[in-house]
């Protein structure tokens, strides 16, 4: 799964952007043991190296199939402090189907208390989805995968 959407409230410099992309690609390639997410959103999980705790879910915590939805991602450090400003990478797809996200969601606003608004995320079918959140905060980089099933 190729990361394709580096998003940030503040525009990153191209060289930094490239570095983060490479970093996340490497991490994504190594990180294959993702945790199952049987519970309804929002979901909370630590990033792979324990640098951050990430909470992810759609507004109103209901996933609507085939709708362009807003999501909220909340990022805290290991001491529970708000992480801001962070560069956030969001990508995903369906492993079993071999395709990525149908849209290119973006972080469009910082809502305070470590919460970031994500716009433009559409999940267009039921089944097993993966969403990846990559975080770059003052040079500390880590990521987490959320794997979950959408059903009727």
């Amino acid at each position: 799964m190729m990361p394709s959407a580096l998003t940030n409230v503040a525009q990153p410099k191209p060289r930094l952007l490239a570095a983060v992309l490479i970093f996340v690609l490497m991490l994504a390639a190594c990180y294959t043991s993702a945790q199952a997410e049987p519970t309804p959103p929002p979901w909370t999980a630590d990033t792979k190296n324990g640098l951050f705790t990430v909470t992810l879910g759609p507004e109103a915590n209901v996933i609507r199939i085939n709708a362009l939805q807003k999501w909220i991602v909340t990022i805290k450090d290991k001491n529970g402090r708000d992480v801001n400003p962070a560069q956030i990478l969001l990508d995903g797809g369906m492993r079993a189907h071999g395709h990525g996200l149908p849209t290119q969601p973006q972080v469009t606003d910082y809502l305070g208390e470590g919460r970031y608004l994500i716009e433009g995320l559409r999940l267009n079918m039921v089944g097993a989805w993966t969403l990846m959140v990559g975080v770059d905060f003052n040079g500390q980089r880590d990521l987490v995968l959320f794997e979950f099933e959408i059903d009727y």
Partner: protein
Amino acid sequence: MKALVMVVFACISGSVLADFPAWSDRELRILQSFNLDNLGSAPEQPSNKYADNKDAAELGKQLFFDKRLSANGELSCASCHVPALHYTDGKARGVGVNTTGRNTMTIVGSAHQRWFYWDGRRDSLWSQALIPFEAPNEMGSSRTQVLKQVMQDDKLSSQYQRVFGAFPEQLDAEELPEHAGPFADKAGQESWYRLSQREQRRVNTVYANLGKAIAAFERTLEYSPTRFDRYLEELTQGRSDSTTLSDSEKAGARLFINAEKTQCLQCHNGPTFSNGDFHNIGSGNFSGEHLDFGRVFGLQAVVMDEFNCLGPFSDAKKDQCSELRFLKQDAHVPLEGSFKTPSLRNVGATAPYFHDGSKATLGEVLSYYNQPPDITSSGAHELRTLNLSDEELAQLESFLGSLSD
């Protein structure tokens, strides 16, 4: 209400049907997801503030059926979008001035779509409606030719000005070139680029409005309830013994929603039986006469289109153009040969099938899905072999037949 429906479904699933095994609760939830009532009215169209204007729709209807807007005076939008054929043409590939490269899609229910054409190269009904006038194989005309016809026709001119106001000052129909447009033939293009940018802008303003009028008409072409919808309604009324669908059709519906047996539901979901996105089923044409890479070029075209939601002729604010703002612009390999998932409503009455009309019957389509081409020979695609029996294929086909009004 939802709870009531679920209670009714639960009662149904517990009842005893003579020949057809009862639907499970999950199956009933999936069936309910197809309910036409869930579709609602056509979504707002911020890029076209005339989308729900009745006068605009009436003008659009006149334009839709007006053969004078074609190069040879013999073709209108309705020549390929034939009302009696669910606004398709029954041909493998559309035939205008010449034969086109693609199958004619229906425009019934198109107001609910996000992208237009098989490759999604337009993002609104109104921007789509502007293409066929100038496409060399379709109506073969040009935007100045269309404008002259409208501006010099008393009735159309009057209808236009009632909706959009006066034509731009300094736009004189008599002085417009007979045949000029950026997508017209070579002579038409040369003529177009001899116009100043201001002149082009005036022409485009009126031309965009004509598209918005046609879109207002097309928005009125909504889906009608089908026999399948009536069956769903009967289920919600507790009529578990309904024979509106035959046992074969019910068995086909069960296969259709069974993700273990088939992959139909992945793309053909929701009330329109389409997720509106682009998928690769291995039908791209990467060699030969009808070369067609599908979405990979449509993606670039819609971003560059001056009539898109973010363009100067759109009525939308930037933040209202969500589809374009969050468009995935990564032209990755799977997009080569991807095409838009068509709705399955009226599918039994809108043959032939696939983007190039290469499948004449639903039986051929289902056989293809049952045994898709080898990936190594057809490029990447999303299908897997299904191994359905002939009886199961027949059941699926009979179910699809119930989706016509």
